[in-house]
């Protein structure tokens, strides 16, 4: 026990001696939490909208007025021709163009139906889909308005059926993206710091040659590893704590569930990450290699965690792969406990998987760590 304490002391001294590292460990992640949480939104706002009105009738003007009044569409630019509009889209100055044909009003009067042309820049498919929904919603409500007077005169027999749906958004009524993103980004930062620090730690001693010196001392393998990893475990929990305080104070994120449960889960989760870091350390000779591998897995873990893109939409093989992604479980647990107030039994599956993962990873790491090279 005494030996472990000394190693921990040594590790802490080494971390805190390096003045350049301190701000990177503590300030950089929290700064990113504060700044980047604002960036992550799928909400489509300020759509750059343009139109071509070949009709210039009162109806077309009324329709365009609807778009003007909508909060989704930002700038209404008028174009002389489709060609001019296409060019603006090529330049990237507009993303949606509505073209009203010159027989628009006449068609409505004579045939009671009329078509408008809608061109959407679909490079970002998801945004294009949302933009299309916005446009259709506006047109539909316009349709309803001009139809209303005629409908009232119809008798019961021919009155069209109407099914309405009432959406109700649980846990996040205002659809606030920060509520969704802040816990997720906090997870990423805790994971990145603990993985990168632990991943290069032992390999650094290898590269510098100091590992050999430790190996000739009577320290046991397990003591050495525990002593090495404990400081990072504490740093991870410390980051979580400061991150939670920031979430509450700056972003006003609700913390519905039990803090104790969150800490209990995080304590085990960090062990998984540290195990991975140690494992990487054992299999590399230089810090450079260790970093590359850590970075490789980190990018995959981040993008396949369900944090930014939904896991259900991935193909089946990819969904199976995400079972091995610790970040996925952490993101799920954070959101479930923090935002929904899930209990221990609700997160039991994630808890057990993480625990198993921690056991396997650390088992492998200790097994592959060789005191003699």
């Amino acid at each position, binding site marked *: 026990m005494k030996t472990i304490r000394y190693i921990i002391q040594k590790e802490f001294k080494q971390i805190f001696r390096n003045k350049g590292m301190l701000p990177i460990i503590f300030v950089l992640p929290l700064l990113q939490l504060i700044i980047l949480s604002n960036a992550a939104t799928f909400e489509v706002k300020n759509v750059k909208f343009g139109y071509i009105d070949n009709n210039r009738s009162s109806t077309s003007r009324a329709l365009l007025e609807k778009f003007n009044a909508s909060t989704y569409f930002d700038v209404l630019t008028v174009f002389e021709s489709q060609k001019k509009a296409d060019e603006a889209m090529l330049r990237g100055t507009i993303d949606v163009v509505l073209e009203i044909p010159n027989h628009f009003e006449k068609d409505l009067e004579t045939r009671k139906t009329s078509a408008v042309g809608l061109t959407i820049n679909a490079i970002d498919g998801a945004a294009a889909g949302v933009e299309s929904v916005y446009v259709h919603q506006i047109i539909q409500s316009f349709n309803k308005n001009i139809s209303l007077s005629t409908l009232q005169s119809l008798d019961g027999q021919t009155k069209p059926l109407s099914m309405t749906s009432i959406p109700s958004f649980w846990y996040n009524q205002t659809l606030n993206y920060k509520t969704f993103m802040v816990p997720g980004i906090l997870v990423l930062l805790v994971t990145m710091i603990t993985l990168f620090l632990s991943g290069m730690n032992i390999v650094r001693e290898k590269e510098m040659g100091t590992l050999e010196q430790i190996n000739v001392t009577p320290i046991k393998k397990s003591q050495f590893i525990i002593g090495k990893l404990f400081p990072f475990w504490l740093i991870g929990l410390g980051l979580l704590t400061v991150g939670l305080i920031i979430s509450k104070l700056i972003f006003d994120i609700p913390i519905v569930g039990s803090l104790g449960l969150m800490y209990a889960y995080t304590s085990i989760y960090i062990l998984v990450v540290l195990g991975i870091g140690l494992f990487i350390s054992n299999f590399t000779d230089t810090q*450079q290699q260790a970093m590359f591998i850590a970075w490789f897995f980190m990018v995959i873990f981040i993008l396949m965690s369900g944090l930014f893109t939904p896991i259900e939409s991935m193909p089946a093989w990819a969904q199976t792969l995400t079972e091995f992604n610790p970040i996925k479980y952490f993101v799920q647990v954070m959101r479930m406990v923090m935002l929904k107030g899930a209990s221990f039994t609700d997160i039991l599956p994630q808890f057990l998987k993480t625990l198993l993962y921690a056991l396997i990873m650390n088992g492998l790491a200790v097994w592959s760590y060789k005191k003699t090279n």
Partner: protein
Amino acid sequence: MKRFIGFVTKEFYHIFRDKRSLFILFGMPIAQILLFGFAITNEINNVDIAILDHSKDATTKEIIQKIKASKYFSIEQFIEKESDIEAVFKKGKVKAVLNFEQDFEAKLGSTHKATVQILTDATDPNTANTIANYVNAMLAKYQQERNAGIAIPFQIVAQTRMVYNPEIKSVFMFVPGVMTIILMLVSAMMTSISITREKELGTMEILLVSPLKPFQVIVGKVVPYIFLSVINAIVIIVLSIFVFKMPVEGSFFLLGLESVLFIIVALGLGILISTISATQQTAMMISLMGLMLPVILLSGFIFPISSMPLPLQVISNIIPAKWFIIIVKAIMLKGVGLQFIWKETLILIAMALFFIGLSVKKYKIRLE
């Protein structure tokens, strides 16, 4: 010049001798782009939902059938009472519950109106909103079918044309982004680490007493990485064309030049990082912790920049990746030439000059 060439040759030897690093350097980008190109999509498919049908009549059954048949939803379970909703949400099993009101069909018959409640787990606002929209669209379609024959007086229909990506493939969005993070991080990380490594191991002093000029030392260290990054860029472009069927509407030559330009920007950033860090650890933490999330989040790779708050839109301008992503999409998908992207190109050139200039100024000939 001869000395310089000798030095560069030595650096190449160094890199090629380390087979493991080389494997990592070339293997990982390929693995990543394949993985992401196939797996990542921000479309919403197969969302698990639950049904709470108080009415259980022919109409609600028909609507449920339609929902079942769509690729957007899969019905995870049927629940019987309101009080079960909270439990299924808390377990995270379903993302939404459709709650059909009592006597759905009867109400349609008598008042011509009936209501479905869409309860969504809005901890993920994007999915929640999209689910609500999809359900709405499906109801509207069903309604239209039932109403066929009853003329609805006025109807404006929009004929939608999706340009540049008519099939709305999200891989078209992700390939340029993944290409950008790979080039950015590989180039910036590799150079910053390889220079600080010399410092940390003490071999930099030996280089500095050699007859090579300091800037020759730096350039000599960077040249092999330019070479490696260019190969990486080529591999990624080839994969995106043959595996993901990404079009390259514009000029290959221009795409190549712009990629080289971006690689130089990233390498310049890497050199700058190495001048301010004493150890490999610091260099790596700055390039990994400092670059990874901002590049992913502020570049427009996943999240639209135009939706961000204004201060962040301003900050996004200093992220080189943002400009490169615009350029790659413009050349590959829109097929434009330099006349449409000269502004973005100039910004990248200015960034390259700035990073390299600043590192030259900060670079100390003597180590303390």
